[in-house]
């Protein structure tokens, strides 16, 4: 994983950066989700302004094989608009919380995008031909006088400039009282779940006027509420199994065959608290911000404020691996509580073969942990490393004591520059890292 080293080490290089250059960030441009599709050819981002931008990878140039194809804008559309909830007198943000791709079944691509309240199924299709040679219409669309038509011809399809159209095919609304934090498509490719703070609903992709509630943790008396759902995901292979994580650091695995309402978990994953680290902030930092199954389905990964944990689904009492993301922040928890950074929700992701996991941090740093070599690396997404194929230099944060050259002290970290969303290409070593309003694409060095 380090910059220099053995043959198996990956050297990460800058490839592209998308987004505005200036430091003045328009709020609508803040990236709120990043997701590769199943082939990796398409990369979707959602932003706070409710827009979805899809990038498509160029087909590899076989002659110039020193780099993989670049990602260029393929389609941009407004997925969600701000809404006003008249019953509650509240505005509903148009920010896209999550995007999930459906596997491709025909020429068109489908994705689900969601804001706090409404999920939409979008169809993205290409049009690169158009019919020409109508009998009753001129080329510009004006109708011809039928009396002038003396011969008939068959219209033919002629090539045109590629046009990518996005159209909303389904709108799944009015099923969530609280804010949707997750959507996850089932391995049956027919159903999906959506989770808010207190409930999880199961939908059929074809049916928009009905959803089934499968988890409900709302207490009868809201004053007794002490725990909320923070993330949920379907198992990649078992269509009856899903997990959801909570603000108390627990993960519950549920089997939909057991009962209609999965309030009783099949498994409860929880690591006992380390008494030596106990503080008033212990619960907050144990809150899980993201949960992701491995591609194999054997493991799942959770992200809490300071660490990434890998769990074996067969072992509930503790994770099999724990990686510290930024342990140097433990002594700063009070400041981070004060400025609300302690509530930041970092996501995490697996690489295609489940050997490396990645997550973001502050100062535009992101971290990768190699599960096999146990090595980790810290890299920075910054415009300073702008030249394509520039190898990224590993970063180091100096926790205390004498700061070495090239190290950054904890107090110099910019807590406004946070990398919350990252994605890894399902097959190749290409990663997408979102800073506040820019999307960075890095690739491993191809020799």
């Amino acid at each position, binding site marked *: 994983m380090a910059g220099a080293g053995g043959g198996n080490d990956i050297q990460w290089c800058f490839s592209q950066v998308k987004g505005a250059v200036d430091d003045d960030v328009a709020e609508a441009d803040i990236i709120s989700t990043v997701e590769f599709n199943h082939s990796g050819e398409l990369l979707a981002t959602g932003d706070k302004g409710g827009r979805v931008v899809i990038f498509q990878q160029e087909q590899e140039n076989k002659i110039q094989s020193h780099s993989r194809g670049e990602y260029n804008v393929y389609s941009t559309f407004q997925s969600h608009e701000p809404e006003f909830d008249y*019953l*509650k*007198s*509240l*505005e*509903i943000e148009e920010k896209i919380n999550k995007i999930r791709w459906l596997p491709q079944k025909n020429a068109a691509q489908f994705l689900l995008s969601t804001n706090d309240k409404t999920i939409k199924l979008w169809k993205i299709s290409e049009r690169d031909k158009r019919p020409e040679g109508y009998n009753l219409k001129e080329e510009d669309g004006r109708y011809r006088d039928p009396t002038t038509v003396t011969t008939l011809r068959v219209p033919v399809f002629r090539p045109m400039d590629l046009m990518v159209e996005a159209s909303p095919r389904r709108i799944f609304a*009015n*099923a*969530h*009282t*609280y*804010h949707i934090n997750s959507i996850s498509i089932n391995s049956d490719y027919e159903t999906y779940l959506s989770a808010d*703070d*207190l*409930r999880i*609903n199961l939908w059929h992709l074809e049916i928009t006027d*009905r*959803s089934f*509630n499968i988890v*409900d943790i709302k207490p009868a008396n*809201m*004053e*007794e*509420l*002490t*725990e*909320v759902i*923070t993330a949920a995901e379907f198992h990649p292979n078992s269509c009856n199994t899903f997990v959801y994580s909570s*603000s108390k650091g627990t993960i519950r695995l549920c089997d939909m065959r057991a009962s209609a309402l999965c309030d009783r978990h099949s498994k409860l994953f929880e690591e006992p608290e380390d008494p030596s*680290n*106990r*503080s*008033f*902030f212990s*619960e*907050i930092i144990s*809150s899980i911000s993201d949960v992701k199954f491995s591609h194999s389905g054997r493991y799942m990964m959770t992200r809490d404020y300071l660490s990434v944990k890998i769990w074996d689904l067969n072992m509930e009492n503790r994770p099999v691996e724990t990686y510290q993301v930024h342990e140097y922040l433990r*002594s*700063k*928890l*009070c*400041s981070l*509580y*004060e400025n*609300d950074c302690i*509530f930041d929700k970092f996501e995490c992701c697996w690489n295609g073969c489940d050997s490396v996991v990645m997550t973001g941090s502050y100062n535009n740093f992101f971290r990768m942990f190699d599960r096999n070599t146990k090595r980790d690396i810290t890299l920075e997404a910054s415009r300073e490393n702008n030249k394509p194929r520039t190898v990224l230099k590993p970063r180091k944060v100096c926790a205390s004591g004498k700061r070495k050259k090239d190290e950054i002290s904890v107090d110099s970290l910019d807590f406004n520059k946070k990398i919350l969303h990252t994605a890894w290409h399902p097959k190749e070593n290409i990663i997408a890292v979102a800073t506040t309003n820019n999307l960075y694409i890095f690739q491993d060095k191809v020799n």
Partner: protein
Amino acid sequence: MFARGLKRKCADHEEDMGGALAGFKAVPSYSLQRQSLLDMSLVKLQLCHMLVEPNLCRSVLIANTVRQIQEEMTQDGTWRMAAPQSTGRAPLDRLVSTEILCRSTREQDGVCPASGMGDGLALGPVSEFSTVTSAQTPGNPQNSVWEMDSPRENRGSFQKSLDQIFETLETRNPGSTDELFSDMDSSYYDLDTVLTGVVSRAEPGPCDGLQGLAPAATPPPSSSCKSDLGELDHVVEILVET
């Protein structure tokens, strides 16, 4: 953020506290640090509630933190009624502002039963406001404590970052706090009193039901506010078909 010039008082104060803090002369006592965290949390909850639609996860986490602190303070015996001198002007201001703020909040909450804070989540709308006077500006959370009697001003002596302060918290053995507090003169406001807002009021106000922090036993009296919320919650549930 904290007013300078009050360090001496804190240091003097700590010199009285015996050996446990001897090594931390410049660091405020655990109880003050804890109190400050409590204040900060309550202000956060109040600000939370002022937002259009509060983040439920964040609210719950902060509320749990407040509850933890309160439980510990109850065990320590430091959680007690406000001392007589502080039931003068300041608490009355709070009660008045509580009622005003609660009323306007209730109008807003009356139609949003199912959203996070509107459901009467643990502390309810009143609790956050009850610790803040109407003169409070949200951007300056520490101001709320300045008008209280003098020991409270010791909080102004946090010269060092709160980080270092809380490092000491993490290693503190709760059992040793008794001797630390023996000389304490500060009067911590009684959160229960403040939350219920009934100390000096004859008839229960609309916010009485929302006593999330009152220690376990007494179930909150049902109030018109809560039953309204319950009905509307039911209606909303039907509407969203969950």
